[in-house]
């Protein structure tokens, strides 16, 4: 009898141990951070977390970018991981609305994140609750060939007239002012964002992407008019609709084009292609309307807990870990991006420093990006319209009417 009980107890103990090993100790993380730098950053992040939490073993599933956008819908509903990466703003709205993300206000409260991550709280909040933890962001702006500017005696343009004059000087020297590749559309979205932010300001831009303002509004036309000035003056490289953003780096590397309106992730490939920090520079997108406070574009990447996650307890520990100042310093060093945590330090890379300074002094507001601020369908229709406009500026009326029609349908 005694013997039997002992076996039973042993079996029970074994099964509890087994189940705790399976459920309490295993953390499944899905991310699409498959480029070299983000991959290395996540490897270090997970190794660091495991070292501090020896009772948790992390299973990490790495997806490619394009595949992730489709598979996240499947795995959130069917086979949810405990942590998944995604983006702030309107981009997470469908999942929040469908109840697939878990609110993590408690993680924010318990770890004082409302102070340390204060700058991103707005873009993480929907319906008064917080839906994830941001771990990195990066600035947008104008990346330019410093050496070409200097060779032609051009100072960094601070306002629209200087910018147009700089372009004329470059053209006279046989250099196309701005390179861009619009094959995959979103690059044109970035240009529109900046032109609209500088022409009409942050409030207007957000109202437009929220569908509260008509696309046929005169203020939108004013933005497009500024864009048309650049097109008519031959600022953009030819045949940009045939290139991806990476292919459009080539003219800049070869010195055939001098500027690129881009995110900070363009720096790494430009350096790899052989440009030194003496040849490559960054400046804030110039002022167009001096009455409008300067707003910037800085997309935020985030981590979330799916509602169907099995191990939410350890997932919360992981989010708290990622939010910590020293951890954000470390991963952003590897990513070559900016940490969200105000206690983190920024890498001494000159582009990071420039971006940090620009974003921390911004008083106009921080936009995510056209396809994160506007709902997906509107973003698609909009960016397709921008691409068409850049090639056929005379079709402006048709394009704006088409976008207005799309607005009427999408935001009902």
């Amino acid at each position, binding site marked *: 009898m005694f013997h039997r009980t002992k076996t039973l107890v042993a079996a029970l103990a074994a099964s509890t141990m087994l189940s705790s090993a399976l459920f309490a100790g295993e953390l499944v993380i899905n991310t699409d951070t498959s480029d070299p730098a983000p991959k290395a950053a996540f490897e270090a992040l997970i190794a660091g977390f495991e070292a501090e939490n020896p009772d948790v073993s992390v299973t990490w599933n790495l997806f490619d970018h394009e595949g992730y956008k489709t598979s996240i819908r499947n795995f959130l509903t069917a086979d949810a991981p405990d942590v998944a990466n995604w983006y702030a703003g309107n981009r997470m709205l469908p999942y929040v609305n469908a109840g697939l993300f878990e609110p993590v206000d408690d993680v924010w409260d318990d770890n004082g994140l409302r102070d340390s991550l204060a700058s991103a709280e707005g873009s993480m909040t929907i319906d008064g609750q917080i839906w994830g933890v941001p771990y990195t962001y990066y600035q947008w702006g104008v990346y330019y060939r410093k050496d070409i500017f200097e060779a032609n005696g051009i100072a960094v343009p601070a306002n629209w007239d200087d910018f147009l004059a700089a372009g004329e000087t470059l053209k006279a020297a046989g250099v196309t002012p701005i390179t861009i590749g*619009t*094959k995959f*559309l979103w690059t044109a979205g970035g240009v529109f964002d900046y032109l609209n932010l500088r022409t009409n300001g942050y409030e207007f831009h957000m109202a437009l992407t929220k569908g509260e303002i008509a696309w046929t509004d005169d203020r939108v036309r004013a933005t497009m008019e500024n864009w048309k000035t650049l097109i008519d003056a031959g600022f953009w490289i*030819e*045949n940009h609709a045939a290139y991806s953003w990476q292919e459009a780096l080539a003219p800049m590397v070869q010195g055939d084009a001098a500027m690129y309106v881009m995110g900070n992730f363009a720096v790494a490939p430009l350096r790899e292609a052989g440009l030194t920090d003496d040849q490559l520079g960054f400046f804030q997108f110039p002022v167009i309307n001096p009455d409008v406070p300067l707003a910037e574009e800085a997309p935020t990447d985030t981590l979330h807990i799916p509602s169907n996650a099995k191990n939410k307890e350890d997932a919360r520990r992981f989010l708290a870990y990622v939010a910590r100042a020293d951890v954000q310093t470390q991963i952003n060093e590897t990513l070559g991006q900016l940490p969200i945590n105000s206690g983190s330090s920024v890498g001494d890379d000159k582009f990071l420093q420039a971006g940090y300074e620009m974003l921390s002094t911004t008083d106009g507001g921080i936009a995510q990006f056209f396809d994160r601020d506007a709902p997906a369908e509107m973003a698609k229709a909009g960016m*397709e319209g921008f691409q068409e406009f850049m090639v056929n500026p005379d079709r402006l009326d048709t394009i704006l009417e088409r976008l207005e029609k799309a607005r009427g349908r999408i935001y009902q």
Partner: protein
Amino acid sequence: MSTYWKKNQQKLAPWLFLAPGIFMFAVYVIIPIFQSVNISFYAWDGLGEAKYVGMRNYVEMIDDEAFFTSLKNNVIWLLLYMLAIPAGLFVALFLNQTVRGIRIYKSLFFFPFVISQVVVGLVFTWFYDPSFGILNILLMSIGFEPIAVLADEDFATYGIIAAGLWPQTAYCMILYLTGLNAVDPEQIEAARLDNAKGFKMLWYVILPQLKPATFIALVVTIIGALRSFDLISIMTAGGPWGSTRVLAFYMYEQAFSEYGFRMGYGAAIAVVLFAIMMVYIAGFLYKMYRDEKGS
């Protein structure tokens, strides 16, 4: 029970043998067709609640430029893709000779069909590239302005079709090559005696014997034109500004792509595409039925 079985054994047995096939066909083909038609009456993002909207998706479609652009492109694809049949026949006639090493030439001509459509798409993207593509280097060497084929709404679709014709011609060629093997040498001999040669020989003696090959070539070419998805996705992603989309690609974009997830509208497009294909499928089935009845 057993008497019923004995009485109707002859009638029931075929159905029993067909049952597994019918079951699979129903689950994977027939039922999804009705499900698609059903979804096309809803507005649904694939995650939340589906909302019944009646015919609204179809009404929207009538007013949707992008839909008609895609439809027009589908027609262009169907028409121009047919060029693969005469081109394939020509290559097959050219290669149907006994020269030393002819097998190597045949394999080389067949090569584009063996490699993946994605690779074909990439190769042609570079071929058309406005700055380093060989097409524009050639154009410039004879004094023309370079053309960014894939970035120009007037040329892009034709550029993609040309890329598609490359492997499709190879496919038709191989069909005709096997067909030519089966041509009766005695008939050719007889036609020669009657002084037939050149085009007349081809038209009245060879081609009629190639009729089965032509029929298969027609079928695979139509199917190839309608499933022209990978090339578009690789070469232009539907652009510039949606001018190279075909219905299948537009459906994918609306229903499954990064900016889509309008399952209802996507399903409505699929239903229209299905209706168009149904015309062709019905014709095909009718011909099969007639042929089988005739023999």
